[in-house]
């Protein structure tokens, strides 16, 4: 296996747009190519994450159009990767593997999405398509519903009174908005309070609007290459030290999903490959699609013991400057969650953090960072560990 590095990275501002998914991706990709100090013709493959493009724009086969849009030559391999919200992370993981193996020297990987082109009911429906369409979707389950049930399961299992848990969940949203306010690419750059969350309308009991990430448009892309090539083109290559991926069946088959076997398996692979453990991670961009999701994943990734992460949030341990900085970008909650682009945007933030380019939201002395991306109801989980 060759040592694999990230050169340039690119990302659009997240939020409402009038650009197409191809145009969004092209902007992010061209930024990544330019900041890699290479030309489009140097790129051999394009791996695209996209979740809902079929429904948002009636567009399939999007990867090849993206390649053409940015002027990649006819011999380019262009492919879409789909694993719901983890789509871009799968694209990046496969780019890593194929560069490591020697199949390609330079790959551009990322994702794009335009969920705001859909009505709320249609967006809710298409998101719900990532659950088991035969056995669970006919209950009318929604994604907020998946995590609303997780909140009740968690409160019941660890005997935390629901109002106390909800207050701590609200603190996750407050923290992520505080970080997002310092991120010029975030969809929401505005601080909120616990009251903002607790006064917002109920989406799925006990989750309220501000417990939920928004529907978003946006794209992000990174250029992946070998250590040798990266050193010739950029000052600060960031290395992909470890990758992991796990899978699971429908929610019912996972039973008590406060403990997600797919996530635990994925993280274990990534830690092993990188030769590090949870205590070595300085900064993490994680899948806070809902406030309770961030609490539960902190335990599944090994940052906290089971049942203890909500208390750690209350103590401020997950803030920038705390024990471990979680979602300095604002996370899915404030930065936004353009499904197919999310994993690439997480990597974008970690790369910028490790290079010390994050200004007001910079995590001091960050040397090892991690991403965690969840697709569907933990059907797909991807973890990446990056270092300098």
């Amino acid at each position, binding site marked *: 296996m060759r040592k694999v590095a990230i050169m340039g990275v690119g990302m659009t501002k997240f939020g409402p747009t009038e650009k197409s998914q191809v145009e969004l991706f092209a902007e992010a990709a061209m930024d990544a190519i330019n900041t890699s100090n290479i030309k489009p013709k140097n790129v051999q493959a394009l791996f695209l994450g996209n979740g809902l493009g079929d429904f948002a724009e009636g567009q399939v086969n999007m990867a090849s159009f993206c390649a053409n849009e940015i002027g990649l030559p006819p011999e380019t391999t262009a492919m879409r990767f789909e694993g719901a919200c983890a789509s871009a992370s799968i694209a990046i993981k496969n780019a890593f593997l194929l560069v490591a193996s020697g199949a390609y020297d330079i790959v551009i990987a990322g994702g794009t999405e335009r969920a705001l082109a859909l*009505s*709320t*009911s*249609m967006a*809710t*429906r298409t998101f*719900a*398509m990532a659950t088991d*369409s*035969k*056995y*669970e*979707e*006919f*209950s*009318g*389950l*929604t994604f*907020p*519903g998946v995590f*609303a*049930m*997780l909140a*009740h*399961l968690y*409160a*019941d299992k660890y005997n935390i009174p*629901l109002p106390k848990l909800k207050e701590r969940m609200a603190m996750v949203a407050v923290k992520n908005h505080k970080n997002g306010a310092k991120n010029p690419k975030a969809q929401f750059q505005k601080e909120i309070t616990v009251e903002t969350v607790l006064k917002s*309308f*109920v*989406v*799925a*009991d*006990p*989750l309220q609007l501000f417990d939920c990430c928004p529907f978003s448009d946006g794209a992000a892309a990174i250029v992946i290459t070998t250590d040798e090539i990266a050193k010739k083109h950029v000052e600060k290559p960031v290395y992909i030290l470890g990758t992991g991926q796990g899978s699971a*069946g*429908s*929610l*019912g*088959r*996972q*039973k*008590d999903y406060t403990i997600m076997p797919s996530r635990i398996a994925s993280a274990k692979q990534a830690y092993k490959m990188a030769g590090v453990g949870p205590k070595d991670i300085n900064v993490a961009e994680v899948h806070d699609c809902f406030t309770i999701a961030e609490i539960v994943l902190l335990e599944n990734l090994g940052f906290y013991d089971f049942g203890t992460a909500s208390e750690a949030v209350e103590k401020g341990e997950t803030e920038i400057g705390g024990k471990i900085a979680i979602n300095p970008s604002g996370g899915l909650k404030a930065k936004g969650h353009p499904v197919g682009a999310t994993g690439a945007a997480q990597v974008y933030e970690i790369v910028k953090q490790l290079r010390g380019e994050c200004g007001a939201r910079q995590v001091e002395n960050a040397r090892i960072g991690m991403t965690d991306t969840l697709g569907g109801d933990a059907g797909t989980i991807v973890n990446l560990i990056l270092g300098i």
Partner: protein
Amino acid sequence: MYKLTYKQYFEALKEGKLLGLKCNDCSSYTAPPKLCCDKCGSTNTEVVTLSGKGVIKTFTVIRVAPEGYDAPYIVAIAELEEGPWLMGNIVNVDPDKAKMDNIIGKKVTVGAKVLPKMNYTPDEGVTPAFTIAE
């Protein structure tokens, strides 16, 4: 190869019978069905009728519904007597009165609710309908 397809499982559920698979190798139950035992992966399974009784483990009230559904309604997961966790709707509780203490841990019986064919579904849908015991 399949002992019980989703279509056969739906047809039985509509008639009030909750079918599942019993593994002849590890003795555990799989419901809803799949190609192999959910615990050990064996295909040495047989189709059995389950008790249709369980206990609610968690729930939510959906207040923002997907296209094709009318909120509010209760979605819940029950642990069946035979072990599998099954998702469905609680149909005999007012959604606005559903709270952790009057839902979680309650015994339920499993029935069925049929949904018409919608956009992007191949056919009608069937979902378990839970009735909380009085």
